[in-house]
């Protein structure tokens, strides 16, 4: 063993402070790189959101030009989805899956590093497109043709081409990651860890990876056809020459709706880890939560055309997609009720991770319920493409995913870095974000009902339009301030080193990642206890207590 180590690490430069991160194939470092990079883009995408909210704060505002507004709207959406939510979850998965299943690393460490560096490259390509001829892409994050085609009056210049290139790089990154997660989860679980003893977060990553494999090729195909149209003169999506635009819509949303669940299933997993630990209880229905994850994943590939109710597919197809979309509410409801039941008769401890998890339940429920309006297709004919939809998906993606991953950050931060984030600042962060979020997005439901359509750079109405928009813009500032508090917290904890040192298991948690040191050593564990339940660490604590008495 010693001889082999010598051969693999013959020189010291790879252990340097910077080089160590550049050449790392350690899943923990890759996970942290993913999370750090995603957070940087979260700030960048958030600044774009603040620009939009400033432009929309009052009627007839001239803060942004109409050209740049369309670029900002496109880049905000693309950044938040492809560079923030999906990769930050990949980061958590990278850091946590091997630790949670008691493995030394991912199945393919080098492939894992490639996934990360492709993600970084894809993001850089996307953001460099601001400087390309014609500016960044400006056809919206779904880039419907013919607006995204290379016509002088549609999307000339190279912004759209960079967007496509970036999507290609990012899908490749995600596909490699997905394969890696699946192989790792299937083959490297600790002795005794059967499927029914696996942490629910790992269940979520299993389904997340499967969904990525199913959904991403449709997106790659769609943007490839678009690229061919733009560069070599095909006309897949140019109707005047026999192309079909609706085909693009189908391909895009066949990816686009599973993508929604790709962005929220791992967060469900995190919530299913956090709620029991801070309720001092087991999850209420382990199997119900695990199987509802699979049910959601399966159903999510059958609902895509609910994004296309105004395309004119006919009431037959619309009816099918209404029913399939409504059916998804059932497994989602099962999860919410199971989380609620988990807090029942618990010893609820309101540390910051728990606050974010409870906030997640409160907000995601509202986002799910507003989705039922959109599934009922005649109602969607009114609400589609209005600010109601903007409000709905921010309740799901920000109130849901972002609250969830912030909870995850507070929860696993001590494991990642060995120090606890400050609780007082954490609570300020939560409450300001909670209030700011509702201020920003609750009034947007009303704006949609008043007739405000999405992606407009300005409006002329005063009255309630102005009131709601102003409240929304002020709220976005409150949210931005809460993120600032988070960054200050990170600074104080890590850079100023004021954070309290965490032991192996500061929360008295249930799963194997808390068995090793904080932060864990390069290969995670010297040995792993034989797993006899879904809560191996609690079993261990009880055994130790029994031995002591």
């Amino acid at each position, binding site marked *: 063993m010693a001889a082999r180590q010598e051969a693999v690490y013959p020189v010291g430069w790879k252990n340097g402070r910077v080089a160590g991160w550049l050449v790392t194939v350690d899943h923990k470092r890759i996970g942290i790189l993913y999370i750090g990079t995603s957070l940087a883009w979260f700030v960048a995408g958030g600044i774009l959101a603040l620009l939009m909210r400033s432009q929309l704060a009052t009627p007839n505002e001239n803060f942004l030009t*109409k*050209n740049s507004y*369309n670029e900002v*709207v496109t880049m905000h959406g693309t950044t938040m989805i492809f560079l923030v939510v999906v990769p930050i979850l990949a980061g958590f998965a990278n850091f946590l899956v091997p630790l949670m299943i008691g493995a030394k690393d991912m199945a393919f460490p080098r492939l894992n590093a490639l996934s990360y560096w492709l993600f970084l490259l894809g993001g850089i390509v996307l953001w460099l497109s601001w400087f390309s001829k014609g500016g960044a892409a400006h*056809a919206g994050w779904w880039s*419907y043709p*013919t*607006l995204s085609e290379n016509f*002088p*009056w*549609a999307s*000339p210049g190279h912004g759209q081409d960079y967007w496509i290139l970036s999507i290609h790089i990012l899908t490749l990154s995600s596909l490699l990651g997905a394969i890696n997660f699946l192989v790792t989860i299937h083959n490297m679980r600790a002795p005794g860890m059967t499927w029914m003893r696996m942490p629910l977060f790992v269940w979520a990553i299993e389904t997340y990876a499967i969904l990525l494999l199913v959904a991403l090729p449709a997106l790659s195909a769609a943007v490839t056809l678009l690229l061919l149209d733009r560069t070599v003169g095909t006309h897949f999506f140019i109707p*005047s020459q026999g192309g*079909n*635009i609706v085909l693009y819509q189908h391909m895009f949303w066949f990816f686009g709706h599973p993508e929604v669940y790709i962005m929220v299933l791992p967060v469900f997993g995190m919530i299913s880890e956090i709620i029991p630990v801070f*309720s*001092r*209880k087991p999850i*209420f229905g*382990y199997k119900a939560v695990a199987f509802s994850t699979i049910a959601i994943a399966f159903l999510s590939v059958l609902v895509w055309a609910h994004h296309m109710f*105004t395309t*004119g597919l006919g009431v037959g197809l619309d*009816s099918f997609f*209404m029913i399939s979309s*409504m059916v998804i*509410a*059932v497994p989602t*409801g099962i999860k*919410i*009720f199971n989380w*609620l039941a988990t807090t*029942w*008769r*618990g*010893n*609820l401890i*309101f540390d910051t991770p728990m*606050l974010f998890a409870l906030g997640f339940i409160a907000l995601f*429920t*509202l986002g799910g*319920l507003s989705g*039922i*309006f959109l599934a*009922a297709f*005649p*109602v969607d004919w*009114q609400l589609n*493409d*209005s600010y109601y939809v903007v409000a709905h998906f921010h309740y799901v993606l920000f109130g849901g995913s972002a609250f969830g991953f912030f909870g995850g950050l507070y929860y696993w931060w001590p494991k990642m870095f060995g120090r606890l984030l400050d609780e007082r600042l954490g609570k300020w962060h939560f409450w300001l974000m909670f*209030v700011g979020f509702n201020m920003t997005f609750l009034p947007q*439901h009303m704006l949609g*009902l008043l*007739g405000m*359509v*999405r992606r*407009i*750079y300005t409006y002329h109405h005063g009255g*309630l339009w102005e009131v709601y928009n102003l409240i929304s813009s002020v709220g976005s500032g409150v949210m931005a301030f809460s993120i600032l508090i988070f960054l200050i917290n990170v600074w104080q904890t890590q850079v100023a080193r004021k954070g309290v040192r965490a032991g192996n298991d500061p*929360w*008295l948690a249930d799963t194997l990642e808390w068995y090793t040191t904080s932060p864990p050593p390069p290969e995670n564990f010297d040995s792993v206890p034989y797993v006899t339940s879904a809560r191996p660490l609690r079993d261990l604590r009880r055994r130790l207590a029994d031995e002591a008495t």
Partner: protein
Amino acid sequence: MRRKLPSFVLVLLVALATAGVAAAGNGGFAPIAPHSPNASRITDAYWVVFGFAAFVAVLVESILVAFIIKYRSRGRSRAVEGAQVHGHTRLELIWTVFPVLILAVIAAVVFYELPAIDREPSAATNPIHITVEGHQYYWQFDYPNGARSIGTLHVPAGAVVDLKVVSSDVIHSWWIAALGGKIQAIPGRTNHTWFQANQAGVYHGQCAELCGVFHASMLAGVQAQSLQAYHAYISKTAPATIGQQEWSGVCATCHGNLGQGGYGPAISNNTIITQPAALAGILREGVTGTAGAMPPVGNTWTDGQIAALVRYLKKNIYKPASLGATSGG
């Protein structure tokens, strides 16, 4: 601090709920007042869904807040475990079946309302057929007698109006909230929708699908009026004012109300706007310039329409260079 948190959540939720209810009568959660049978039926369906959604929202959030208050730690140590209970088949069944029932009722209501939303009233033997064409960045309407108008659709109040919705450049989306739902105008495809304005008045809307730089300016109006006024409009007013409508609804968006320039270049002193043949080429083919591109805004315009535009421009907009320098802007 820990003790105060749950009550703060409660206060916040109550405040939010009260604000919502207070605002419900005026804007709030109420959709725009419907003025067409299909829009009314959609609003009915909306309130049914709202009722169930509000019920579930209140139920879940109340349980959440109640549990937060009731089972809060009260200073107990983290080492104290809650009741180690889990799993209850009957409960799991209840919260599976109960949402299924709610969703079934919602779906049933949708299917009950659907025929009257989707199809024109069968009593309407003679709907008025109008073609709606989405363009960067205006709506153009073709009436049964061949007349055209831009921006505002004129219809008789009370008549069933059947719309054929098309586009020849990018995807647009037709939406007048008071008169029913959206339908996309998709190049290469013909979509249909309809409405029946139940009283005279002007109903406003705008393009709902991102269609380019001036997406926000692509407004639409429907003027419902008496049958007599409608006939007068399509037989006399529309043909007489089409030149002016083209200018203010199409050209002025980019070139300014006086042709002084804006997003597009100043054209008030450009002689091309007085030459029908040259202007037709630009309108139908668009322009790919160094400073930007002009979409082929007039690719479905007739020679007569272009002649009318030129007449209007000559009379109202065109100012030869020597004069234009002072009064153009």
